[in-house]
């Protein structure tokens, strides 16, 4: 409210950068529906396909493998429902984003859940036994959205393929922060979102390996390879491509810088009693998740907000009510531990001064949150 604010919730949505805004401003001026056959349509399609090729090039994919859609959630829905079809089964990890895990609501018992260890990782060796005759797909995220922990995607993919099923990874929190090479990964399906890397909200993509046939969950004009219908937003696609190019270009440099910010935060946290860092290596350099003993995460969030710092509890809300983290519960943490966790996530604008601001505000916030917890 007063003075400059510290924004450490890039994993929720990272601000759109100036070059992305400029590129989109130009693209919004392009008239026409990219599916139209006339001159205006061709002009729009030219811009759209250029964006698609850019995305493909940055992720080691073929342009025809890039299915544009509204974002990470839709990409995940397409992958899971498309692979399951009318009677297939899928296997997902216990720490997936709700846009994967909640496939249970639609597929019911056709969704199997793979447990994780105390660090939040899936054991690839367990996959063979979990795959049954009707299983079509294993879905394990690249980077966990709450903890930042990296899953053994290569081993999971190998295990899925050995068992004769496809492998999908929700890479929404990996793209732009870790090197992601779709072809090299061996994955059949990969989800990404623009606004986690400084692009606009409202666009993302599902990468679909050539030869993988999915059942379209929706219907309409069949614009995106008959898998996803709806007029493709050209300017948003340009925003995605521009943001991704920026992120990929500076990735190696930026990942070192963010890792240093993370180390700075961890080092400072050591001075605050009763804090446990849940983000263990290998992890995204952009996320640090911690549990503060004897607190409610929503109290901490409120106190830090009042101190000028935006961060997240990481986990979902039901009707605005903070819920214990399903991810931490799956990692074997207690209800109390899962109710007192915070996520700090970094982006291009994050500075060492931002980290120092957190470390400056946290001890008093923790003390207050503990007394409120006891009240």
């Amino acid at each position: 409210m007063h003075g400059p604010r510290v924004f450490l919730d890039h994993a929720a949505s990272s601000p759109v950068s100036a070059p992305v805004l400029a590129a989109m401003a130009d693209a919004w001026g392009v008239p026409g529906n990219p599916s139209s056959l006339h001159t205006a349509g061709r002009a729009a399609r030219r811009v759209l396909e250029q964006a698609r090729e850019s995305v493909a090039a940055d992720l080691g994919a073929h342009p025809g493998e890039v299915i544009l859609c509204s974002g990470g959630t839709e990409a995940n829905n397409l992958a899971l429902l498309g692979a399951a079809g009318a009677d297939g089964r899928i296997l997902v990890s216990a720490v997936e984003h709700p846009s994967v895990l909640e496939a249970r609501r639609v597929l019911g018992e056709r969704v199997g859940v793979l447990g994780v260890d105390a660090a939040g990782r899936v054991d690839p060796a367990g996959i063979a036994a979990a795959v049954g005759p009707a299983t079509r797909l294993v879905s394990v995220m690249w980077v966990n959205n709450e903890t930042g922990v990296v899953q053994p995607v290569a081993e999971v993919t190998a295990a899925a393929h050995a068992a004769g099923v496809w492998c999908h990874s929700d890479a929404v929190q990996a793209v732009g922060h870790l090197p992601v090479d779709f072809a090299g990964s061996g994955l059949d399906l990969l989800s990404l979102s623009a606004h986690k890397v400084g692009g606009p909200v409202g666009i993302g993509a599902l990468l679909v390996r050539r030869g993988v046939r999915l059942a379209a969950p929706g219907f309409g004009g069949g614009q995106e390879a008959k898998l996803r219908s709806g007029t493709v937003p050209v300017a948003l696609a340009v925003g995605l491509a521009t943001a991704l190019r920026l992120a990929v270009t500076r990735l190696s440099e930026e990942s070192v810088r963010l890792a240093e910010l993370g180390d700075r935060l961890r080092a400072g946290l050591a001075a605050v009693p009763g804090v446990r860092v849940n983000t263990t290596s290998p992890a995204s350099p952009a996320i640090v998740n911690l549990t503060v003993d004897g607190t409610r995460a929503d109290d901490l969030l409120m106190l830090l907000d009042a101190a000028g710092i935006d961060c997240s509890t990481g986990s979902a809300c039901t009707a605005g009510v903070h819920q214990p983290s399903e991810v931490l519960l799956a990692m074997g943490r207690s209800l109390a531990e899962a109710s007192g966790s915070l996520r700090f996530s970094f982006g291009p604008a994050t500075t060492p001064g931002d980290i120092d601001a957190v470390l400056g505000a946290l001890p008093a916030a923790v003390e207050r949150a503990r007394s409120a917890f006891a009240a």
Partner: protein
Amino acid sequence: MRVLAAMSGGVDSAVAAARLVDAGHDVTGVHLALSKNPLTYRSGARGCCSLEDSHDARRAADVLGIPFYVWDLSDRFDADVVTDFVDEYAAGRTPNPCLRCNEKIKFAAVLERGTALGFDAVATGHYARTRQVDGRVQLLRSREERKDQSYVLGVLNQAQLRRSIFPLGPDTSKAEVREEAAARGLYLARKPDSHDICFIPSGDTAGFLAGRLGEQAGAIVDDRGELVGTHAGAHRFTVGQRHGLHLSVPAADGRPRYVLEVSTVTNTVTVGPKELLAVSSLSGIRPTWTEVPVDGPWRGLAQWRAHSEPMPATIAASADGVQVDLDQPAHGIAPGQAVVYYDGDRVVGSATIARAAA
């Protein structure tokens, strides 16, 4: 001052928060999630803990430009208010859950958590006044008599009142609140008032109690002990009730009969003529005092429902609580109700009615 504004999603608490912002306070809105099942949508009737209300409260806070959070107090609400409500009915008494919520939740759990988090006071949209006199905070009726809510705040003590703000305060009328909300661009300006018990959105208290307590058919007897009918469950009756008795034996004198007593121990409902409902002696337990305990006897006014007529009475401390003797007998006073006593417009304290006698 750092103020925590409890925002129910209704128009009163939204305008209350807005006035605090105008007054220059550092205001944070908080909506209390009290229901165990916050995903229940209500249509028509509304209470204070539905999902829709939570959205409305958040929208109002956003319009005011203040931080807003939802606090989950459903466990404490269930233990301190809902369970108490059921237990009281099970014991044949008629509790007021709104008073209980103010006493145990809004001005206790919320106030304690808020204070620990660095807030100086809690504000609500109640229609009541406070004023400082000789270093004490007095609680007074709103001058807007029809909306006055001092009765449901009568359970508050001095420590609670010192940290409570009622910005609708002295004399705002409901119409003025709605007008003010509209002028402030709050779309809930036309939202209807809540009347029902928030955790019984259907309004079917008897059905709710039957679900919690089960139902057992029993006897309805008259004041001489004669069997005059049967009932499907004693919880369906409250003292003073006239309708829905379905008595099989007509009264000898043909006059209407009223519920005089509900005994959940014997599962018997006693009915009789209206004059037997008249009571003038109230024994109250669990007394509370807004400022300091008053031994008395003293002359004041007693009120036992949110909008019942205040009645002249003599009030005095007793061995286990408070004795209230009404100047004129009154009808329909049930054990379990709270009696709130006033000195003029000033709330002095409250007690739970344990016995009411002629």
